[in-house]
Protein backbone atom coordinates (compact mmCIF):
# COMPACT_ATOMS: atom_id res chain seq x y z
CA UNK A 1 0.00 0.00 0.00
CA UNK A 2 1.41 3.35 -0.98
CA UNK A 3 0.28 6.90 -0.42
CA UNK A 4 -0.81 9.17 -3.24
CA UNK A 5 -2.18 12.65 -2.91
CA UNK A 6 -3.15 13.40 -6.51
CA UNK A 7 -3.24 12.10 -10.05
CA UNK A 8 -3.08 8.45 -11.31
CA UNK A 9 -6.80 8.12 -11.95
CA UNK A 10 -7.89 8.24 -8.35
CA UNK A 11 -10.61 10.64 -7.17
CA UNK A 12 -8.53 13.37 -5.53
CA UNK A 13 -11.13 16.10 -5.22
CA UNK A 14 -13.65 13.97 -3.40
CA UNK A 15 -11.27 12.98 -0.65
CA UNK A 16 -9.72 14.96 2.10
CA UNK A 17 -6.60 14.19 3.94
CA UNK A 18 -4.22 11.35 3.30
CA UNK A 19 -5.77 8.30 1.75
CA UNK A 20 -3.86 5.13 0.98
CA UNK A 21 -4.11 4.42 -2.79
CA UNK A 22 -2.60 1.73 -4.97
CA UNK A 23 -0.72 2.94 -8.04
CA UNK A 24 -1.74 -0.15 -9.93
CA UNK A 25 -5.50 0.29 -9.85
CA UNK A 26 -7.58 2.60 -11.98
CA UNK A 27 -11.09 3.98 -11.83
CA UNK A 28 -13.75 1.30 -11.41
CA UNK A 29 -11.38 -1.60 -10.71
CA UNK A 30 -11.28 -3.95 -7.77
CA UNK A 31 -7.94 -3.48 -6.08
CA UNK A 32 -6.08 -6.42 -4.61
CA UNK A 33 -2.96 -6.24 -2.48
CA UNK A 34 -0.72 -7.33 -5.36
CA UNK A 35 -0.10 -4.59 -7.96
CA UNK A 36 1.21 -7.07 -10.46
CA UNK A 37 -1.99 -9.06 -10.37
CA UNK A 38 -3.95 -5.88 -11.05
CA UNK A 39 -1.81 -5.10 -14.09
CA UNK A 40 -2.23 -8.62 -15.43
CA UNK A 41 -5.96 -8.50 -14.88
CA UNK A 42 -6.22 -5.14 -16.64
CA UNK A 43 -4.47 -6.43 -19.74
CA UNK A 44 -6.26 -9.75 -19.85
CA UNK A 45 -9.72 -8.25 -19.43
CA UNK A 46 -9.67 -4.74 -20.87
CA UNK A 47 -12.74 -2.62 -20.03
CA UNK A 48 -15.38 -2.01 -22.70
CA UNK A 49 -15.12 1.30 -24.50
CA UNK A 50 -18.42 2.09 -26.15
CA UNK A 51 -17.57 5.19 -28.14
CA UNK A 52 -14.59 3.91 -30.15
CA UNK A 53 -14.28 1.69 -33.23
CA UNK A 54 -13.00 -1.33 -31.31
CA UNK A 55 -14.95 -2.17 -28.10
CA UNK A 56 -11.89 -3.17 -26.14
CA UNK A 57 -9.79 -0.26 -27.34
CA UNK A 58 -7.16 -2.54 -28.75
CA UNK A 59 -5.98 -0.40 -31.65
CA UNK A 60 -3.33 2.27 -31.57
CA UNK A 61 -4.70 5.81 -31.94
CA UNK A 62 -3.20 6.32 -35.44
CA UNK A 63 -4.12 2.89 -36.75
CA UNK A 64 -5.56 4.17 -40.06
CA UNK A 65 -2.47 6.20 -40.93
CA UNK A 66 -0.15 3.35 -39.92
CA UNK A 67 -2.09 0.85 -42.03
CA UNK A 68 -1.92 3.18 -45.04
CA UNK A 69 1.84 3.22 -44.70
CA UNK A 70 2.04 -0.55 -44.20
CA UNK A 71 -0.22 -1.84 -47.02
CA UNK A 72 0.22 -0.27 -50.49
CA UNK A 73 -3.11 -1.48 -51.92
CA UNK A 74 -5.53 -4.39 -51.86
CA UNK A 75 -4.20 -5.78 -55.15
CA UNK A 76 -0.59 -5.47 -53.99
CA UNK A 77 -1.41 -7.25 -50.74
CA UNK A 78 -3.12 -10.12 -52.52
CA UNK A 79 -0.25 -10.46 -55.00
CA UNK A 80 2.25 -10.61 -52.17
CA UNK A 81 0.19 -13.29 -50.42
CA UNK A 82 -0.02 -15.40 -53.58
CA UNK A 83 3.70 -15.03 -54.25
CA UNK A 84 4.45 -16.18 -50.71
CA UNK A 85 2.17 -19.20 -50.92
CA UNK A 86 3.72 -20.14 -54.25
CA UNK A 87 7.20 -19.85 -52.75
CA UNK A 88 6.14 -22.06 -49.83
CA UNK A 89 4.73 -24.57 -52.29
CA UNK A 90 8.02 -24.70 -54.21
CA UNK A 91 9.94 -25.31 -50.97
CA UNK A 92 7.49 -27.98 -49.89
CA UNK A 93 7.70 -29.81 -53.21
CA UNK A 94 11.48 -29.73 -53.15
CA UNK A 95 11.58 -31.04 -49.60
CA UNK A 96 9.09 -33.79 -50.37
CA UNK A 97 10.98 -34.84 -53.50
CA UNK A 98 14.22 -35.11 -51.51
CA UNK A 99 12.55 -37.20 -48.83
CA UNK A 100 11.00 -39.40 -51.50
CA UNK A 101 14.40 -40.03 -53.09
CA UNK A 102 15.92 -40.90 -49.71
CA UNK A 103 13.07 -43.23 -48.88
CA UNK A 104 13.36 -45.01 -52.23
CA UNK A 105 17.07 -45.57 -51.58
CA UNK A 106 16.25 -47.05 -48.20
CA UNK A 107 13.54 -49.28 -49.62
CA UNK A 108 15.88 -50.54 -52.32
CA UNK A 109 18.53 -51.32 -49.72
CA UNK A 110 16.10 -53.27 -47.54
CA UNK A 111 14.80 -55.25 -50.50
CA UNK A 112 18.30 -56.27 -51.49
CA UNK A 113 19.21 -57.13 -47.93
CA UNK A 114 16.18 -59.39 -47.68
CA UNK A 115 17.31 -61.26 -50.77
CA UNK A 116 20.89 -61.58 -49.61
CA UNK A 117 20.47 -62.63 -45.99
CA UNK A 118 17.20 -63.09 -44.14
CA UNK A 119 18.78 -63.07 -40.69
CA UNK A 120 20.45 -59.69 -41.23
CA UNK A 121 17.19 -58.41 -42.68
CA UNK A 122 15.26 -59.50 -39.60
CA UNK A 123 17.80 -57.95 -37.28
CA UNK A 124 17.75 -54.68 -39.23
CA UNK A 125 13.99 -54.50 -38.90
CA UNK A 126 13.92 -55.13 -35.18
CA UNK A 127 12.27 -52.44 -33.08
CA UNK A 128 14.68 -51.08 -30.53
CA UNK A 129 13.54 -51.07 -26.93
CA UNK A 130 14.95 -47.94 -25.27
CA UNK A 131 15.09 -49.56 -21.87
CA UNK A 132 16.78 -52.77 -22.94
CA UNK A 133 20.46 -53.35 -22.30
CA UNK A 134 22.33 -55.76 -24.48
CA UNK A 135 24.58 -58.41 -22.97
CA UNK A 136 27.67 -56.67 -24.29
CA UNK A 137 26.60 -53.44 -22.63
CA UNK A 138 25.94 -55.06 -19.27
CA UNK A 139 29.31 -56.79 -19.37
CA UNK A 140 31.13 -53.60 -20.30
CA UNK A 141 29.40 -51.50 -17.66
CA UNK A 142 30.65 -53.70 -14.86
CA UNK A 143 34.17 -52.41 -15.34
CA UNK A 144 33.42 -48.75 -15.99
CA UNK A 145 33.88 -45.67 -13.86
CA UNK A 146 30.92 -43.56 -12.78
CA UNK A 147 31.15 -40.86 -15.49
CA UNK A 148 31.53 -43.56 -18.15
CA UNK A 149 28.46 -45.36 -16.83
CA UNK A 150 26.51 -42.13 -17.01
CA UNK A 151 27.71 -41.57 -20.57
CA UNK A 152 26.48 -45.01 -21.60
CA UNK A 153 23.14 -44.60 -19.88
CA UNK A 154 22.51 -41.16 -21.33
CA UNK A 155 22.64 -42.47 -24.88
CA UNK A 156 19.23 -44.06 -25.12
CA UNK A 157 18.83 -46.54 -27.91
CA UNK A 158 16.50 -45.35 -30.64
CA UNK A 159 16.44 -41.72 -29.48
CA UNK A 160 18.40 -38.69 -30.65
CA UNK A 161 21.44 -37.91 -28.52
CA UNK A 162 21.19 -34.82 -26.36
CA UNK A 163 24.45 -33.44 -27.74
CA UNK A 164 23.00 -33.07 -31.21
CA UNK A 165 22.78 -29.30 -31.46
CA UNK A 166 19.83 -27.36 -32.83
CA UNK A 167 20.89 -24.68 -35.34
CA UNK A 168 21.00 -21.15 -33.94
CA UNK A 169 21.36 -17.76 -35.60
CA UNK A 170 25.00 -17.42 -34.63
CA UNK A 171 27.56 -20.16 -33.96
CA UNK A 172 28.61 -21.02 -30.39
CA UNK A 173 31.39 -19.01 -28.76
CA UNK A 174 33.47 -22.11 -28.06
CA UNK A 175 33.25 -23.34 -31.64
CA UNK A 176 33.35 -27.04 -32.45
CA UNK A 177 34.48 -29.39 -29.62
CA UNK A 178 37.49 -30.89 -31.39
CA UNK A 179 38.99 -32.44 -28.29
CA UNK A 180 36.79 -35.27 -27.20
CA UNK A 181 38.03 -37.98 -24.89
CA UNK A 182 38.02 -41.29 -26.71
CA UNK A 183 35.33 -43.43 -25.13
CA UNK A 184 34.42 -46.89 -26.33
CA UNK A 185 30.72 -47.41 -26.37
CA UNK A 186 29.82 -51.08 -26.03
CA UNK A 187 28.35 -52.23 -29.32
CA UNK A 188 24.63 -52.87 -29.07
Amino acid at each position, binding site marked *: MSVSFLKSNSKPFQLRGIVARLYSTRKGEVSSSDPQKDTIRRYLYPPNIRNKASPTGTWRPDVARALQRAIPSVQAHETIERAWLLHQRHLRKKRDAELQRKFNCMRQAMQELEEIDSRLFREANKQEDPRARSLAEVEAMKSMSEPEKRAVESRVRGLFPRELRIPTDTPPKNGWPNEWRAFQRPL*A
Partner: protein
Amino acid sequence: MFSRTVLSSCKRAPKASLLRGLATEASAVPAVLEVAQVDAALSKKTARPNLHTGIILNRSPIITRTPTAFEKAYYAYQARIHRALHNPFPYDFYFKQGSPLESRFNIEERRRERKAFGAPFGMQTGETSEAEKLAEATMRDEEEAMPRVHEADINSDFKNLQRRGQRNLYLLLQKQENGMAVWRFPQGSVDRGELLHCAATRGLEVECGNNMDTWIVSRNPIGVFHPPSLASTGGTEKDVVFFYKGHIVAGQVRPNRTHTQDFAWLTKGEIKTRVDADYWLGIKDMLSDF
Protein backbone atom coordinates in the same frame (compact mmCIF):
# COMPACT_ATOMS: atom_id res chain seq x y z
CA MET B 1 14.80 -71.90 -62.31
CA PHE B 2 14.01 -74.81 -59.97
CA SER B 3 17.21 -74.42 -58.01
CA ARG B 4 16.23 -70.87 -57.21
CA THR B 5 13.03 -71.91 -55.49
CA VAL B 6 15.05 -74.27 -53.30
CA LEU B 7 16.96 -71.28 -52.00
CA SER B 8 14.17 -68.81 -51.51
CA SER B 9 12.07 -68.82 -48.38
CA CYS B 10 9.20 -66.60 -49.46
CA LYS B 11 8.80 -64.00 -52.16
CA ARG B 12 11.69 -63.78 -54.53
CA ALA B 13 11.40 -61.81 -57.73
CA PRO B 14 12.52 -63.41 -60.99
CA LYS B 15 16.01 -63.25 -62.36
CA ALA B 16 15.51 -59.64 -63.35
CA SER B 17 16.06 -58.71 -59.71
CA LEU B 18 19.72 -59.65 -60.03
CA LEU B 19 20.12 -57.16 -62.85
CA ARG B 20 18.29 -54.44 -60.96
CA GLY B 21 21.40 -52.96 -59.36
CA LEU B 22 22.90 -49.67 -60.44
CA ALA B 23 26.20 -51.10 -61.65
CA THR B 24 26.41 -52.88 -64.97
CA GLU B 25 27.04 -56.63 -64.66
CA ALA B 26 28.66 -58.91 -67.19
CA SER B 27 26.22 -61.09 -69.10
CA ALA B 28 28.31 -64.18 -68.30
CA VAL B 29 27.54 -63.83 -64.62
CA PRO B 30 24.04 -65.45 -64.59
CA ALA B 31 25.42 -68.56 -66.30
CA VAL B 32 28.09 -68.95 -63.65
CA LEU B 33 25.55 -68.38 -60.89
CA GLU B 34 23.30 -71.14 -62.22
CA VAL B 35 26.09 -73.63 -61.62
CA ALA B 36 26.80 -72.19 -58.21
CA GLN B 37 23.18 -72.42 -57.14
CA VAL B 38 23.08 -76.20 -57.56
CA ASP B 39 25.18 -76.66 -54.44
CA ALA B 40 23.81 -73.49 -52.88
CA ALA B 41 21.45 -75.61 -50.81
CA LEU B 42 24.47 -77.04 -49.01
CA SER B 43 26.40 -73.84 -48.36
CA LYS B 44 24.38 -70.65 -48.28
CA LYS B 45 27.33 -68.32 -48.67
CA THR B 46 28.49 -69.42 -52.14
CA ALA B 47 26.14 -67.26 -54.15
CA ARG B 48 26.12 -64.58 -51.52
CA PRO B 49 28.03 -61.42 -52.40
CA ASN B 50 30.63 -59.91 -50.09
CA LEU B 51 29.01 -57.50 -47.72
CA HIS B 52 30.50 -54.16 -46.83
CA THR B 53 29.13 -51.28 -44.83
CA GLY B 54 29.67 -47.68 -45.76
CA ILE B 55 29.09 -44.84 -43.33
CA ILE B 56 27.66 -41.50 -44.37
CA LEU B 57 28.81 -39.36 -41.45
CA ASN B 58 26.91 -36.09 -41.37
CA ARG B 59 27.70 -32.87 -39.55
CA SER B 60 24.31 -31.21 -39.21
CA PRO B 61 23.94 -27.47 -39.77
CA ILE B 62 25.20 -25.30 -36.91
CA ILE B 63 23.44 -22.06 -37.85
CA THR B 64 20.07 -21.30 -39.39
CA ARG B 65 19.72 -20.60 -43.06
CA THR B 66 20.03 -17.05 -44.36
CA PRO B 67 16.59 -15.99 -45.59
CA THR B 68 16.37 -15.04 -49.26
CA ALA B 69 15.71 -11.43 -50.24
CA PHE B 70 12.05 -12.26 -50.93
CA GLU B 71 11.62 -13.95 -47.56
CA LYS B 72 13.24 -11.02 -45.75
CA ALA B 73 10.99 -8.54 -47.54
CA TYR B 74 7.91 -10.61 -46.76
CA TYR B 75 8.79 -10.91 -43.08
CA ALA B 76 9.37 -7.14 -42.87
CA TYR B 77 6.04 -6.50 -44.61
CA GLN B 78 4.14 -8.78 -42.23
CA ALA B 79 5.92 -7.17 -39.27
CA ARG B 80 4.72 -3.72 -40.39
CA ILE B 81 1.12 -4.87 -40.68
CA HIS B 82 1.31 -6.51 -37.27
CA ARG B 83 2.79 -3.38 -35.78
CA ALA B 84 -0.08 -1.33 -37.17
CA LEU B 85 -2.78 -3.66 -35.89
CA HIS B 86 -1.55 -5.38 -32.75
CA ASN B 87 -3.06 -5.16 -29.26
CA PRO B 88 -1.52 -2.57 -26.96
CA PHE B 89 1.68 -3.79 -25.38
CA PRO B 90 1.52 -3.98 -21.57
CA TYR B 91 4.44 -1.61 -20.98
CA ASP B 92 3.91 -1.08 -17.28
CA PHE B 93 3.82 -4.79 -16.63
CA TYR B 94 7.28 -5.36 -18.08
CA PHE B 95 9.03 -2.09 -17.30
CA LYS B 96 9.05 -0.22 -14.04
CA GLN B 97 8.22 3.43 -14.56
CA GLY B 98 11.32 5.60 -14.77
CA SER B 99 13.80 2.71 -14.88
CA PRO B 100 16.73 2.80 -17.36
CA LEU B 101 15.41 -0.39 -18.97
CA GLU B 102 12.20 1.44 -19.78
CA SER B 103 14.09 4.37 -21.34
CA ARG B 104 16.15 1.99 -23.40
CA PHE B 105 13.03 0.16 -24.55
CA ASN B 106 11.42 3.48 -25.52
CA ILE B 107 14.44 4.49 -27.60
CA GLU B 108 14.52 1.16 -29.39
CA GLU B 109 10.75 1.22 -29.91
CA ARG B 110 10.86 4.69 -31.45
CA ARG B 111 13.61 3.53 -33.79
CA ARG B 112 11.56 0.52 -34.84
CA GLU B 113 8.50 2.72 -35.48
CA ARG B 114 10.48 5.10 -37.63
CA LYS B 115 12.01 2.21 -39.57
CA ALA B 116 8.62 0.55 -40.15
CA PHE B 117 6.46 3.52 -41.12
CA GLY B 118 8.68 6.50 -41.89
CA ALA B 119 9.44 9.93 -40.55
CA PRO B 120 6.28 11.25 -38.80
CA PHE B 121 6.08 8.04 -36.68
CA GLY B 122 8.43 7.42 -33.80
CA MET B 123 9.00 11.04 -32.90
CA GLN B 124 10.39 11.87 -29.51
CA THR B 125 8.15 13.67 -27.05
CA GLY B 126 10.17 15.90 -24.75
CA GLU B 127 13.89 16.10 -24.49
CA THR B 128 16.36 13.33 -23.75
CA SER B 129 16.62 12.77 -20.03
CA GLU B 130 19.61 11.50 -18.12
CA ALA B 131 18.28 7.95 -18.07
CA GLU B 132 17.90 7.91 -21.84
CA LYS B 133 21.43 9.17 -22.37
CA LEU B 134 22.73 6.39 -20.12
CA ALA B 135 20.62 3.83 -21.95
CA GLU B 136 22.00 4.95 -25.32
CA ALA B 137 25.53 4.62 -23.97
CA THR B 138 24.93 1.04 -22.79
CA MET B 139 23.44 0.09 -26.15
CA ARG B 140 26.60 1.19 -27.88
CA ASP B 141 28.89 -0.85 -25.63
CA GLU B 142 26.97 -4.11 -25.89
CA GLU B 143 28.93 -7.23 -26.84
CA GLU B 144 28.41 -8.67 -30.27
CA ALA B 145 27.54 -12.20 -31.26
CA MET B 146 29.89 -14.49 -33.19
CA PRO B 147 29.96 -13.89 -36.94
CA ARG B 148 28.06 -16.33 -39.12
CA VAL B 149 30.95 -16.72 -41.57
CA HIS B 150 33.90 -18.60 -40.10
CA GLU B 151 37.52 -18.15 -41.13
CA ALA B 152 37.43 -21.72 -42.41
CA ASP B 153 35.03 -20.51 -45.10
CA ILE B 154 37.45 -17.84 -46.22
CA ASN B 155 40.47 -20.16 -46.17
CA SER B 156 38.57 -23.16 -47.61
CA ASP B 157 39.86 -25.40 -44.85
CA PHE B 158 38.05 -28.62 -45.76
CA LYS B 159 39.06 -30.41 -42.58
CA ASN B 160 37.52 -27.83 -40.26
CA LEU B 161 34.10 -28.79 -38.93
CA GLN B 162 33.00 -25.17 -38.57
CA ARG B 163 33.09 -24.50 -42.29
CA ARG B 164 29.76 -23.79 -44.01
CA GLY B 165 27.67 -23.64 -40.87
CA GLN B 166 24.35 -23.61 -42.70
CA ARG B 167 24.95 -26.72 -44.78
CA ASN B 168 25.09 -30.44 -44.13
CA LEU B 169 28.69 -31.67 -44.33
CA TYR B 170 29.63 -35.27 -45.12
CA LEU B 171 32.90 -37.06 -44.41
CA LEU B 172 34.87 -38.24 -47.43
CA LEU B 173 38.12 -40.20 -47.33
CA GLN B 174 40.77 -40.39 -50.01
CA LYS B 175 41.95 -43.95 -50.56
CA GLN B 176 44.15 -45.87 -52.94
CA GLU B 177 42.25 -48.24 -55.19
CA ASN B 178 44.16 -50.05 -57.93
CA GLY B 179 46.89 -47.45 -57.76
CA MET B 180 44.50 -44.56 -58.19
CA ALA B 181 43.49 -42.13 -55.50
CA VAL B 182 39.73 -42.09 -55.13
CA TRP B 183 37.43 -40.29 -52.75
CA ARG B 184 34.87 -42.46 -50.97
CA PHE B 185 32.79 -42.65 -47.85
CA PRO B 186 34.36 -44.64 -45.00
CA GLN B 187 33.84 -48.33 -45.60
CA GLY B 188 34.28 -51.50 -43.62
CA SER B 189 33.80 -55.21 -44.12
CA VAL B 190 31.24 -57.37 -42.35
CA ASP B 191 32.45 -60.35 -40.32
CA ARG B 192 30.60 -63.64 -40.12
CA GLY B 193 27.53 -63.42 -37.97
CA GLU B 194 27.99 -59.71 -37.34
CA LEU B 195 25.06 -57.37 -37.63
CA LEU B 196 25.32 -54.64 -40.22
CA HIS B 197 24.99 -51.62 -37.93
CA CYS B 198 27.64 -53.02 -35.58
CA ALA B 199 29.90 -53.55 -38.56
CA ALA B 200 29.28 -49.93 -39.56
CA THR B 201 30.36 -48.61 -36.15
CA ARG B 202 33.40 -50.83 -36.15
CA GLY B 203 34.39 -49.90 -39.69
CA LEU B 204 34.13 -46.20 -38.92
CA GLU B 205 36.33 -46.58 -35.89
CA VAL B 206 38.96 -48.53 -37.85
CA GLU B 207 39.14 -46.00 -40.65
CA CYS B 208 38.67 -42.72 -38.82
CA GLY B 209 39.86 -43.31 -35.28
CA ASN B 210 37.79 -43.21 -32.12
CA ASN B 211 38.29 -39.53 -31.32
CA MET B 212 34.79 -38.76 -32.53
CA ASP B 213 31.47 -38.87 -30.73
CA THR B 214 29.27 -40.39 -33.42
CA TRP B 215 25.75 -41.72 -33.46
CA ILE B 216 24.56 -44.24 -36.04
CA VAL B 217 20.93 -43.36 -36.53
CA SER B 218 19.26 -46.74 -36.90
CA ARG B 219 19.71 -50.43 -37.58
CA ASN B 220 18.41 -49.99 -41.12
CA PRO B 221 20.73 -49.19 -44.01
CA ILE B 222 19.77 -46.07 -45.92
CA GLY B 223 21.07 -47.17 -49.29
CA VAL B 224 22.90 -49.81 -51.26
CA PHE B 225 25.67 -49.59 -53.83
CA HIS B 226 27.14 -52.19 -56.17
CA PRO B 227 30.74 -51.35 -56.98
CA PRO B 228 31.69 -52.40 -60.51
CA SER B 229 33.24 -55.88 -60.25
CA LEU B 230 36.82 -56.04 -61.49
CA ALA B 231 37.86 -58.46 -64.24
CA SER B 232 40.82 -59.74 -62.20
CA THR B 233 38.76 -61.09 -59.32
CA GLY B 234 36.44 -62.99 -61.68
CA GLY B 235 32.70 -62.80 -62.22
CA THR B 236 31.68 -64.79 -59.13
CA GLU B 237 32.92 -62.30 -56.57
CA LYS B 238 30.40 -59.56 -56.09
CA ASP B 239 30.50 -56.76 -53.59
CA VAL B 240 27.58 -54.99 -52.05
CA VAL B 241 27.95 -51.91 -49.90
CA PHE B 242 25.16 -51.04 -47.46
CA PHE B 243 25.30 -47.44 -46.32
CA TYR B 244 24.47 -46.32 -42.79
CA LYS B 245 23.72 -42.77 -41.71
CA GLY B 246 25.56 -41.34 -38.75
CA HIS B 247 25.92 -37.96 -37.09
CA ILE B 248 29.08 -36.52 -35.61
CA VAL B 249 28.46 -34.63 -32.41
CA ALA B 250 31.96 -33.88 -31.11
CA GLY B 251 35.60 -34.61 -31.91
CA GLN B 252 37.49 -34.85 -35.17
CA VAL B 253 38.66 -37.49 -37.60
CA ARG B 254 42.07 -39.07 -37.02
CA PRO B 255 42.50 -41.10 -40.20
CA ASN B 256 44.26 -44.44 -40.20
CA ARG B 257 47.29 -43.68 -42.34
CA THR B 258 47.58 -47.20 -43.76
CA HIS B 259 44.13 -47.05 -45.36
CA THR B 260 43.52 -43.40 -46.05
CA GLN B 261 45.64 -40.54 -47.26
CA ASP B 262 43.32 -37.63 -46.71
CA PHE B 263 39.88 -36.67 -45.43
CA ALA B 264 37.51 -33.78 -46.00
CA TRP B 265 34.14 -32.55 -44.79
CA LEU B 266 32.20 -31.59 -47.91
CA THR B 267 28.79 -30.41 -49.00
CA LYS B 268 26.80 -32.35 -51.58
CA GLY B 269 27.96 -30.19 -54.50
CA GLU B 270 31.59 -30.49 -53.46
CA ILE B 271 31.27 -34.27 -53.20
CA LYS B 272 30.06 -34.38 -56.79
CA THR B 273 33.23 -32.69 -58.02
CA ARG B 274 35.57 -35.10 -56.24
CA VAL B 275 33.94 -38.49 -56.60
CA ASP B 276 33.79 -40.86 -59.63
CA ALA B 277 30.78 -40.60 -61.90
CA ASP B 278 29.26 -44.03 -61.16
CA TYR B 279 29.89 -43.71 -57.43
CA TRP B 280 28.12 -40.35 -57.52
CA LEU B 281 25.11 -41.89 -59.26
CA GLY B 282 24.94 -44.49 -56.52
CA ILE B 283 25.12 -42.14 -53.56
CA LYS B 284 23.57 -38.85 -54.63
CA ASP B 285 20.03 -39.71 -53.56
CA MET B 286 21.04 -40.50 -50.00
CA LEU B 287 22.46 -37.06 -49.28
CA SER B 288 20.64 -33.90 -48.19
CA ASP B 289 20.48 -31.16 -50.77
CA PHE B 290 21.20 -28.23 -48.51
